[in-house]
């Protein structure tokens, strides 16, 4: 093992848990030299601080306020030189099962020094976890989308997204204040957020909550007449394809009754 200390980031919402990990790392100094380059008490702080800390390994608590550990890991996987991640949990049978299925490394609290050392040695070699493993390990949909810009992770809450539109190679995420390009497919987005977004066109998913109404658009020279979705708060109008219209209309009908 190289003499250079491993650069570690410790994320846990409970201060005693963080200091316990620091103590253990101190105990392991001879065997497994490491240096804590950053700490965070919730998921948002991790995403904010980790990229510039240069950490190689992240000790990540699962049960954190703001963003769960698993979701934090998924957003970090967008980083170019993302850290290796060792999950830490007190007790979460579902998470542990998911980790084992997807070969993600985890520690159980209270953490033993020997286990910690083994996990760090392993993490150094395996590197960042695969996005697909993280995706499978997380039980529900994400609460945020992330866009990595120059080694910064920018988060957009799912509730703040109006629609996704596929154009050529990219998918555009339209939030109220601006647009972002993301590298995800409409199909996978539709699958993950089925309750939140509805497909209105081959190339477009709209947030159900953002729909304020529909309007019939007159057909142009080549175009047939079709319906358009009107959105709350922004002037954008989105065409509804003939194939999706009946499904979209049902949503409107349900709202009208409710």
């Amino acid at each position, binding site marked *: 093992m190289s003499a250079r200390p491993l650069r570690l980031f410790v994320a846990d*919402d409970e201060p005693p848990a963080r200091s316990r990990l620091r103590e253990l790392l101190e105990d392991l100094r001879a065997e497994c030299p490491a240096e804590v380059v950053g700490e965070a008490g919730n998921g948002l702080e991790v995403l904010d601080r980790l990229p510039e800390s240069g950490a190689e390994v992240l000790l990540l608590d699962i*049960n954190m306020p703001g963003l769960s550990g698993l979701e934090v890991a998924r957003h970090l996987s967008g980083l170019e030189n993302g850290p290796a991640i060792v999950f830490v949990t*007190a007790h979460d049978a579902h998470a542990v099962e998911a980790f084992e299925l997807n070969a993600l490394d985890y520690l*159980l609290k*209270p953490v033993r020094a020997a286990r910690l050392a083994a996990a760090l040695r392993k993490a150094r070699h395996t590197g960042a976890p695969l996005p697909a493993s993280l995706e499978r390990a997380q039980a529900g949909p994400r609460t945020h989308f992330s866009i990595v810009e120059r080694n910064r992770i920018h988060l957009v809450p799912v509730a703040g997204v109006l629609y996704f539109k596929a154009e050529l190679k990219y998918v555009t995420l339209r939030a109220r204040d601006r647009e972002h390009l993301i590298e995800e497919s409409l199909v996978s987005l539709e699958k993950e957020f089925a309750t939140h977004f509805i497909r209105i066109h081959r190339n477009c998913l709209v947030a159900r909550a953002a729909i304020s109404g529909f309007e019939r658009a007159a057909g142009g020279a080549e175009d047939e007449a079709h319906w358009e979705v009107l959105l709350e708060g922004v002037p954008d109008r989105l065409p509804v394809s003939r194939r999706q219209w009946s499904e979209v209309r049902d949503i409107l009908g349900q709202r009208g009754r409710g």
Partner: protein
Amino acid sequence: MSIKQNAYSDGLPDFRNLGVIARILVAVNLAAIGAACYAEPGWARGMARFADDAAFIEPALLASIVALYLISPALVSMRYLLANVVVVAVVLCIVAGMSYLPQSLSAPDERQLARRLVFSAAISLALLGYLRLRAKAFSPALTEARLQALQARIRPHFLFNSLNAVLSLIRRDPKRAELALEDLADLFRVLMSDGRKFVRLADEIALLERYASIEQLRLGERLRVVWEIDNAPQDALLPPLVLQPLLENAVYHGVEPGTEAGEVLVRIEGRAERVFVRMVNPIHPGSTHRPGNHMALDNLRERLMLFFDAEAKVSTREADGRYQVDIEFPQITAKPAGQVETR
């Protein structure tokens, strides 16, 4: 589990239960031996008669058991009385039908058929009655087992995180670590105690404070507990672990999911011979914590019912981003005779 309990609550035996089937087999054969010995003078001749009878009885008995096993789901959905009539009718049809099967050694005469039918009806009714009484006799045990199960609940999440917090204290602040372990020990002593005994409100409040101090250790300044307990009737009696789960819920759902400090209000007071408890915590709509609130509350409601019957109330309210639980129960200071030990 609950479906089954409801379905059989009125005493109809579960014809798919091995114990029930075994009881039916044994009882019918004993009755047949008894009848044979009664009909013939002397034990040896009685047994010979039973051996003859068995050629008919056993197939009919097995056929009845199979038939009841098959129609058991339908029986469950019927009213108790109707279900009993159906059971007897099925048994009689099988007995009558088998009496006329060609392979019977001899065609039965009318007297023999009548005897068989009367015997079958009598044994069926007797068994139904016996199994009903037996089910009734066992239900208190069931209740007690449920009570114990309800009580043996603590979030593993809390246990392991607390142990972890204590471990972190041992080097830095050994005194504080000792206190924390003592608090944990007290908490677990109550958690593992006999849940059927009343405790004093003062003890329950002490437990709340121990619990809060452990949580404080873990969560630090994120947890603020406001105590309004000066008017709590210290001597009032209540079932154990009524208040602690409420505070645990308040912390788990109201403080842990938040990145900012969260305030939990604990108010306990006595008014007009009744005890009023209120706990209020912030709500976190996007919380990743699994919903366990309702289960804990149902559990609490059930336990208060067991102790105070209809005199206890549990209600919840959500308003202005806060979640509020109110419970009230009669202020009893002397243990009601008989109730403490038996319930």
